[in-house]
């Protein structure tokens, strides 16, 4: 079971929860399970979400494995100039 934390608009999409518990072994599983559980999160996914695993930020790669003891943080997707 992963403890997933969020900030900013993503936190709002998780009904304001500071952290949620999710069983997932990849980013894809994680996002799918959260989208099933939180309709607002599913909408936020369309706007763009990044996942930080032990500090490394993944914007697009959904196949990244998530270690069981990883620090997982959800963030809005970041653009650049």
């Amino acid at each position: 079971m992963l403890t997933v934390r969020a900030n900013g608009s993503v936190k709002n999409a998780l009904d304001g929860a500071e952290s949620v518990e999710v069983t997932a072994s990849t980013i894809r599983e994680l996002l799918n399970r959260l989208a099933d559980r939180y309709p607002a999160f599913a909408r936020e996914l369309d706007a763009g979400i990044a996942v930080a695993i032990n500090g490394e930020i993944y914007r697009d790669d959904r196949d990244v494995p998530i270690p069981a003891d990883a620090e997982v943080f959800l963030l809005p997707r970041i653009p650049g100039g």
Partner: protein
Amino acid sequence: MKHDNSYTGQDFKVIGTRVRRPDGIDKVTGRARYGADASLPGQLVGRILRSPHAHARIKAIDISKAEALPGVKAVVTADDLPLPEGLPGDVAQMLENSMARGRALYDGHAVAAVAAIDAKTARKALQLIEVDYEPLPHVTDVDAAMQPDAPVIHDWLYTSGVDPKPEKPSNIAQRTEFGLGDIEAGFAKADVVIERSYKTEATHQGYIEPHACLANIRPDGSGELWVTTQGPFVYRNVCAQMLGMDIAKLKVTSSEIGGGFGGKTHVWAEPVALALSRKANRPVKLVMTRDEVFRASGPTSSTSMDIKLGATRDGTLVAARAEMRYGDGAFPGIWGMLSCMTCFACYEIANCKAIGYDVVQNRPKVAAYRAPSAPMAAFGVESAMDELAAAIGMDPVEFRLKNASREGGQSHYGPVWGPIGIRATLEAVRDHPHMKAPLGPNQGRGMACGFWFNIGGQTCSDLNVGVDGTVTLTVGTVDVGGSRASLGLIAAEELGIPYEQVQVNIADTGSLGHNDMTEGSRGTFSSGMAAIFAARNTIEVLRERAAKMWDIPVEDVTWEAGQAVAKGSAHGNLKPLSLKDIAAKSPKTGGPIAGHNEVVADGAGVSFASHICDIEVDPETGATKVIRYTVVQDAGKAIHPDYVEGQFQGGAAQGIGWALNEEYIYGDDGRLQNAGFLDYRMPVCSDLPFIDTMILEIPNPGHPYGVRGVGETSIVPPLAAIGNALSNAVGVRMHHVPMSPPRILKALREDGQADRGPAKVA
């Protein structure tokens, strides 16, 4: 296919050398072809009619007289750019931004366009278009736009991120919040608290080359677009969606680019050019004037913010709060949110809260500009950091070092930090000779820090070996700062061949798979990663071909220093085969030799910089001159040091302009007053000193070579570094950017901080 992008610490032969860039000769001899340099038989001239009002209802548009003018081949309005069914909301807003639909939302908003046989006829046709406007109340100032009695620009816009959800629409698109700990408890522990308000005015990226394109839609519905852009694949996707075309039927070719800095990540006139071409059944060239670029492309946010920092007497930052209000222009964006995510990144603060507001205004739609949103937030935070250091009697560099973020610590926006360079840049600044150089009268020195995330993204590269053994690397990320040279070095390094044996080309959208834009400092990071994997893929093919030539198992062939080597005592008599040897035989060993790679280049390492700045103020005029400037930044690994240094210098130069002179000035009528380079003052070479650089290399664990993006962070510290230098030079603390001569003179005449309270000392 999955790739291991981990940093390996490999030794390099050509990486880090300063080879000649392949586009250099064309650019200095005028051969390079930019957005306006393409032509097609029968092409027309496109021109756009723009709103003179800051906000107006478009009651009617009569194009009949323009259409009847001899030489006019097409006139388009929003009726010719209908919203395709299912168009995503953000793309629909981009389309509405390209051509007004019922309302003009800012001075310069496009309302109609013509295509004619020449520029004179096109201009005359614009004069014949009759637009019946009903002016509406407008608001351009970000704070005014947030007031309850402000004219509401969009009746569909309700603030997100607040609880309960608002019952009425407003100009506040969203509220976002990031942070850690308990700020009230944190401030209660503080011995010294600094609380200040700041404003920054909107600036433009100021790229030399205006937006320009040549659109050609054929009668069968297919088409092509030659355009100056940071991302031809994204332009293709967006334009095809807007015009209801199949993506594969629109080929977009990026020209050489005369600067982008984020402003060419977004479409502006390109959908209009395509619509004109479709209607006229002829190619249409559309080149924006400088006036149009200022009024109708994407400047930065104008901002206002309140920053509060608290520290104990031993120099520990114990609490921080930032409330930042960012203007988005006419359509909602995420610029205020980004300010929250960057503002406190340099420091480890147990209790901090960053609140951001995104606010719509009757101004052009804001676009990204180099580390978007970070420079303004850094101006506030880094200015307050200097004041706080002074209030507790600490050296500003030592104060920052004591509180600098560190590997394993938690960032204010959430995740833990990996290996990061903020501390190393501060130590380099502390020890730099620049910090000890003497200063003269009216001169002052300041320093400041900056942060930017960097991004990776979808990337795709081809590597083809010619029969003579030369190599063509084809990438899909536009070269805006010398990336072709860097990518050529990477291919040469992997293959073990000289750099001169590699030619790097930028693909059009018909020649390669999708590539995200060159944005977020991702060009060399992500295409470099794809080039590494494509080269390694090619080496596998080369080993197979060598094995065939020798008639030995491929397992017995290795690739060493640009040659296939047969391993094992049984093959001791086989002379190594060079890439050229293998290429020459390729027609008989299986045909063309190529490698390919598609990758989602995640793992972009974050970037930190610390800058030192010396300025001199003329107390009679308030004019400020930068007399010495040093950039220290972590590059992870500098593939081509010249172009890393160039990015450091370019960002600093733009930041200096932003700090001292550049600003969008609006009149009470909501119209932009200075839409040209005479009145919008950007620094030129004679305004700037040589900008010294120091490259630090703290490897990014998410890239095989340790590369971090380097293109953006250097614009983040200059605003605050100059503000801090000014304060040290003449004793006035500036809270409003740009710190232009009139503002400085006013501050000097007001005798410093008369209207501001001193630091609270508990």
